[in-house]
């Protein structure tokens, strides 16, 4: 809260401008930078402070990591459906449609989330907006790569250590009680004994989703920026043509 000389009290947010808390905040700020720079005001890149750059990077990083965790959860289920370990729509023998649908579910969160970033191409204009977009996307790429490394190691850990038949069997027997008799534990053991191979396939499928996470925003932003630039050039041509026509009319008069 700030006190003015007239003792008026202004209630405002504590966060400094240029420090978005989430993706929606970051996109809104980029939109503001774009509007200011599009209307003719030139803002030097240094206006975008180190704190601001880090804040945009952090938003992108968190997003890339979170998005990756959701796809890391969905990927073994998708591979499990394809390899007929997990039923989909009540069927353990999935059709072509079912396999495609399981694939779509596995990548849909990544597609949806990165589509937000892809829309930033139309605001990729001016030093400030460009710097903000670059930091946001750099954060997303860093988060996605870190997620890939962690998930890749985790899946291999699951395959070689956690679900290793001997280790898993010993570990499972510790849970034997009235609620979980040996017959039930045996069913769980058999299921994970077959299912563990899914983790290896999933680890390599995660490379594909990571490439998607990185490629969609970069391609979207590049195409969007080109389209925006072409639109601006066209508008300038029209303006110049309009001026020529009006000056021609006044000379004739």
């Amino acid at each position: 809260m700030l006190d003015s000389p007239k003792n008026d009290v202004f209630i405002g947010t504590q966060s400094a401008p240029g420090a978005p808390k989430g993706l929606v905040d970051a996109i809104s700020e980029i939109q503001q930078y774009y509007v200011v720079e599009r209307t003719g005001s030139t803002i030097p890149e240094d206006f975008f402070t180190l704190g601001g750059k880090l804040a945009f990077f952090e938003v992108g990083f968190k997003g890339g990591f979170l998005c990756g965790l959701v796809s890391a959860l969905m990927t073994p289920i998708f591979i499990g459906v394809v390899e007929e370990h997990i039923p989909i729509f009540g069927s353990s023998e999935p059709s072509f449609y079912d396999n495609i649908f399981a694939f779509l579910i596995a990548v849909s969160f990544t597609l949806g989330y990165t589509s937000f970033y892809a829309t930033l191409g139309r605001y990729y204009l001016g030093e400030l907006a460009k710097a903000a977009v670059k930091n946001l996307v750099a954060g997303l790429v860093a988060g996605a790569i870190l997620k890939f490394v962690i998930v890749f190691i985790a899946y291999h850990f699951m395959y070689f250590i956690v679900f290793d038949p001997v280790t898993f069997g010993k570990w499972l027997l510790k849970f034997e009680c009235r609620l979980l008799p040996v017959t039930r534990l045996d069913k769980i053991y058999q299921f994970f004994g077959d299912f563990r191979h899914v983790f290896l396939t999933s680890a390599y499928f995660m490379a594909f989703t990571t490439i998607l996470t990185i490629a969609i925003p970069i391609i979207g932003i590049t195409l969007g920026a080109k389209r925006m630039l072409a639109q601006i050039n066209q508008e300038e041509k029209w303006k110049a043509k309009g001026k020529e026509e009006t000056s021609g009319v006044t000379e004739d008069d």
Partner: protein
Amino acid sequence: MELFALPIVGKMNPLNYVAQGSYVELWQYLFRTILHGFWARTIAALSLVFAFWFGVYRRRVGLGITFFIICLIMAYGSGIFRALFYLK
């Protein structure tokens, strides 16, 4: 305990109107029809489309995530229930 003495609470128990067997059968029928086959595929596909429509195009993230969760339940709900009964 006064609350349970109210006649309306007693009337809310479905077993006052139908036998336990038909009540269980009703739920089994609902799960068989909703979480299996054509209806599951249709509802899941529509939910996924709505998830993208609201979440990405209309930028209503909450609604998008809700439809995505509905899609997941439709696709894998049957498997989860089957696993619960399989382990029984």
